[in-house]
């Protein structure tokens, strides 16, 4: 029986057993809804939601984990620009989808890029390269801060997470205005309800907004019109403004705490021209993060001269932060 919004009862309304059964049905439907992409503890459990998010912070000497989910267990710097991210393997299979955003650009004048290798269910290796100088195309393995999100296959078996309640039948419940002939149904219902509520609150607010580092708190798509950045679509992001060629500042509202993670991606140019053939890099250096702003550095490759330059272009980003 599907979820049905019930009308409120008033004093002396008779409670038919069908009312109680619809309450049970509503609860079962809510549970089924929750089970689709959440686990028994209320954590997210769908491929689309990152299983873990964190930052590998390069302090110039070593890497440190920060702003991370506990299931990222440690970092191991193999050599310059090569970092092993060790995971709690019970949460992952080798089939996973990593996302990496370089949050460093060293001197803030050259682009950094990354690629990854999934070594096992417990280890991902991130490789970072930096351009030697803008007037060229020579890259070298270089250490740098990066954000990482790991999307993994669902891991819990599908099943009922609450105690089943046998439907009431005529005569065994709801005598007069009470259901005191079988208190177990009511008590089980109440316990289930509290349980489902608790699971929902694990990674959502009471209003249903997501409230976990694994889900972005804000995101935006911004288009460069030649003089300013237009917000194509934003959520929990205030504005974006140019600072200097190839450098834009995104303002975010209250509610973010550093360190947070920004995943940025160059977008096709919607207004300046329709070409998408550019090779571009976007970096969002952690050194420029504050609780209310972060800067986005953009670089474009000019294949006619085999060189890079800072340039404004369209981009999109999502921001992950600690739950409130």
């Amino acid at each position: 029986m599907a979820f049905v919004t019930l009308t409120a009862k008033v004093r002396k309304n008779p409670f038919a057993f069908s009312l109680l059964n619809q309450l049970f049905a509503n609860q079962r439907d809510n549970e089924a809804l929750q089970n689709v992409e959440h686990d028994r503890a209320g954590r997210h459990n769908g491929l689309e939601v990152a299983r873990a998010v964190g930052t590998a912070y390069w302090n110039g000497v070593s890497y440190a984990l920060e702003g991370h989910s506990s299931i990222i267990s440690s970092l191991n710097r193999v050599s310059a620009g090569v970092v092993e991210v060790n995971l709690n393997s019970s949460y992952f299979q080798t089939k996973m989808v990593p996302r990496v955003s370089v949050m460093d650009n060293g001197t803030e004048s050259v682009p950094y890029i990354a690629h990854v290798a999934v070594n096992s269910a417990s280890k991902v290796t991130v490789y970072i390269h930096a351009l030697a100088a803008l007037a060229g195309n020579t890259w070298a393995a270089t250490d740098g801060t990066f954000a990482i999100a790991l999307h993994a296959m669902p891991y819990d078996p599908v099943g009922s997470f609450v105690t089943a309640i046998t439907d009431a039948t005529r005569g065994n419940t709801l005598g007069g205005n009470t259901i005191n002939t079988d208190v177990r149904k009511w008590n089980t219902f109440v316990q289930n309800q509290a349980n489902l509520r608790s699971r929902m609150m694990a990674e959502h607010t009471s209003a249903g907004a997501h409230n976990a580092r694994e889900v972005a708190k804000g995101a935006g798509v911004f288009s460069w019109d030649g003089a300013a950045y237009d917000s194509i679509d934003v959520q929990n992001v205030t504005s974006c403004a140019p600072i200097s060629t190839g450098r834009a500042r995104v303002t975010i509202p209250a509610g973010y705490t550093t360190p947070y993670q920004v995943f940025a991606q160059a977008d096709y140019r919607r207004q300046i021209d329709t070409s998408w053939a550019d090779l571009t890099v976007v970096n969002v250096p952690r050194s420029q993060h504050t609780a209310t702003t972060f800067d986005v550095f953009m670089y474009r490759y000019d294949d006619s001269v085999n060189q890079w330059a800072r340039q404004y272009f369209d981009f999109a980003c999502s921001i992950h932060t600690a739950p409130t």
Partner: protein
Amino acid sequence: MAYAKLPLIIQDYGLGFQSVNQAADNEQALRDAYDAEHYVESVAFLGFGFSSVEKEFGAHDSFLIPRAVASVKTSTVTLTTGSTSTVFWFDIISPNGRVISAQATRIATGVYVLPLAFVDDQSVWVEGLPRGTGSQVRIVSTRYFAQMSSSPGPRVVVRLMERNSSSGEFEPADYDFDVALFSR
């Protein structure tokens, strides 16, 4: 009415109408909370000669969560040089497969087309990340197309570039990559 925890009862407890109302409201509050950023009912899509599930009960419905993520294993299939329609399969896809199709097309070296469904034209963007095991210098570019002349329906075109250490320039190349697609 906001959620309020209800009391357990014992035999002969007189359960009043307020408790029953609160019980119903609690379930409704839970439902409404999930409705904020999840689909609370499935919606089928019928058209163009096929049917599919546009909105799946319980799935996430948020601008802040990827509509789909996928690893594309170009290295596990034999690609025909010069082919414009070589098809390969994703290694893994979004579980319900409703946004990114399970197959894509290789247009040319380093150029792949991923068919999409049920995305908002305005807000789509796609993160791309190269796979690799060492010193490669690789960059993935993505572009969303609401419509392509060669085939109907929305698409993402992915271009894979790698720096050629001999020439010192970026050139198209085939390698595995990951994508995360966002949309309203």
